[in-house]
């Protein structure tokens, strides 16, 4: 199967400090990958590299068959817009726009605004009734679901989530996981950076980072060893 993203010997060095060291990783289309590791292990740096938010110092990154290691910033922006759905731990919704408008914002920058589509996306995350609410009128779980609806509205090839359940209670965590399951079942590749074993256990594969390197990879998620955080 083709890879949606491929890291080849990627290193990211900030002020002589290596956040990632010679990391190689392949993620297939339709695969659900969980990236785990303690704080400072390089999880967020890896997400930034895969999410085209940052560039590697060394090595190369192939995204959807295209080497983007030396792509210009505006080209990386275009890849984010066209092929990636980003989900943040802090949701990052525009505070003065309603849930619906926040979702439509992604359509606006992508191509054409379609209110019906945006409402469908909100329906999918169970928030159609809350579409006219402002972020401050929504709970943390609901805000995260708006963030997910915004991420999936443009049918991205890859959904990239950074600690998507980090700020949620158990009920909302379950809702989010269920949404991910549904998306994955439909063929979306998902990469979730998480501390949460509950979230990681549903992934097809778990990658564990330590000190900027891949410390362990486990294909069989059921046998993946417990992680001491």
């Amino acid at each position, binding site marked *: 199967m083709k890879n949606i993203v491929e890291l080849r010997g990627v290193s990211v060095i900030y002020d002589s400090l290596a956040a990632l060291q010679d990391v190689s990783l392949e993620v297939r289309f339709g695969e659900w990958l969980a990236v785990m590791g303690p704080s400072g292990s390089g999880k967020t740096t890896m997400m930034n590299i895969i999410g085209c938010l940052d560039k590697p110092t060394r090595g190369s990154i192939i995204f959807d068959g295209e080497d983007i290691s030396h792509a210009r910033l505006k080209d990386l922006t275009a890849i984010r817009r066209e092929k990636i759905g980003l989900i943040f731990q802090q949701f990052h919704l525009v*505070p003065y726009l309603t849930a619906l408008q926040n979702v439509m*914002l992604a359509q606006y920058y992508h191509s054409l605004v379609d209110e019906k589509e945006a409402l469908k996306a909100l329906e999918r995350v169970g928030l159609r009734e809350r579409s006219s609410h402002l972020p401050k009128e929504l709970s943390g779980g609901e805000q995260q679901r708006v963030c997910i609806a915004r991420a999936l509205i443009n049918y991205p090839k890859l959904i990239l989530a950074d600690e998507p359940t980090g700020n949620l209670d158990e009920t909302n965590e379950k809702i989010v996981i269920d949404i991910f399951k549904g998306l994955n079942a439909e063929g979306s590749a998902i990469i979730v950076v998480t501390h949460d074993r509950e979230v990681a256990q549903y992934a097809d594969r778990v990658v564990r980072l330590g000190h900027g390197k891949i410390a362990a990879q486990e294909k069989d998620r059921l046998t993946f060893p417990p992680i001491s955080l």
Partner: protein
Amino acid sequence: MVKRANLKLFVLMLGMFFLRRRSRVTVALLAVIIGATVFFGMLTIYYDVPARLSAEFRAYGANILLISEKGISKGEVEELKRFVPETNLVGITPYIYKTMLLNSHSVTVAYTDIEQAVKINPFWQVRGSAPSKSGEALIGSDLADILEMDIGFAAELEDIKARILFSGILKTGSAGDNFVYLDISELGEDYSADIAELSISLTGDALEEFAIELGYSYPDITPKLIKRVVNSETAVLGKLKALVLFVTIIVLTLTMICVSTTMTAVVLERLKEIGLKKAIGAHSKSILIEFFWEALILGFIGGLIGLIAGFGFANFVSISVFGVSVVFHLSIAAFSVFASIVFTVIAGMFPVYSAANVNPIEVLRGE
């Protein structure tokens, strides 16, 4: 070309920003309003007050003397009244001087249009009243003292064998205090005046240009600027304009710094929003366009409110300092709103330009 649905969302986003971020918008708007108020107010003062004061300066008396060797007729005086733009004409009056015997004393009798003469020379003080009917006259205060005359006294003008009644005593503060003043209508239907005094509310180059034009149009009449009056007016106005300009530049510079700082603070507060938009794929250009329109609307609304406040400010300053109210100039108003928009956009776009190039991960990291 932005499609209709995108345009709708774009307008909606702008509206939402102004409606839902009222405290931020208010802060930015206040800064723009203050800037626009000062700009429009000072500009109005700069242009209007000197113009209004030049009319006030006419209290110094006539600023053009009209001389003609063949004499100036009544018809010519009437024509000249029409020649001068109505808004600039303060007054015009002919003078005919004759030496006569008044109760056996030789005196100078000045025939003039007394109503116009009083208008041209507001500093003239008339005790009693101006002549209102034939046979009445004014007597200069010094002459009245010498001849021991007073209001209501009558005397004989021996040369014309006419008895005149002094309805008032005139103090001009000049040699005119030794004259007897009779209204020029006493001379009958027509006359041929030695000179005429013209007072118009123009100064500097405009006054000189007018005098040249008058000379061309009436070749028999020589207009002479009364240099003493004209020069001092021009000098005072020049200094006043320089002072207002100087204060305007300083106040405007300070206001612009204030507006710019406020706009920068407002933009930097929204760094996270800019970072998010970039993260989900917005071009820097799209972000610049959004902020451009926000700044444009802010500048427009602030400029309009600034017009009202600035006019009040200019009127207050003008009335309290110069004693004259200002006129609302549409051209200055339009320029002020335009300047308000341009400056707000520039002040807003500088920080946005650097913010639009920010790396999203820098601003989205952490809380």
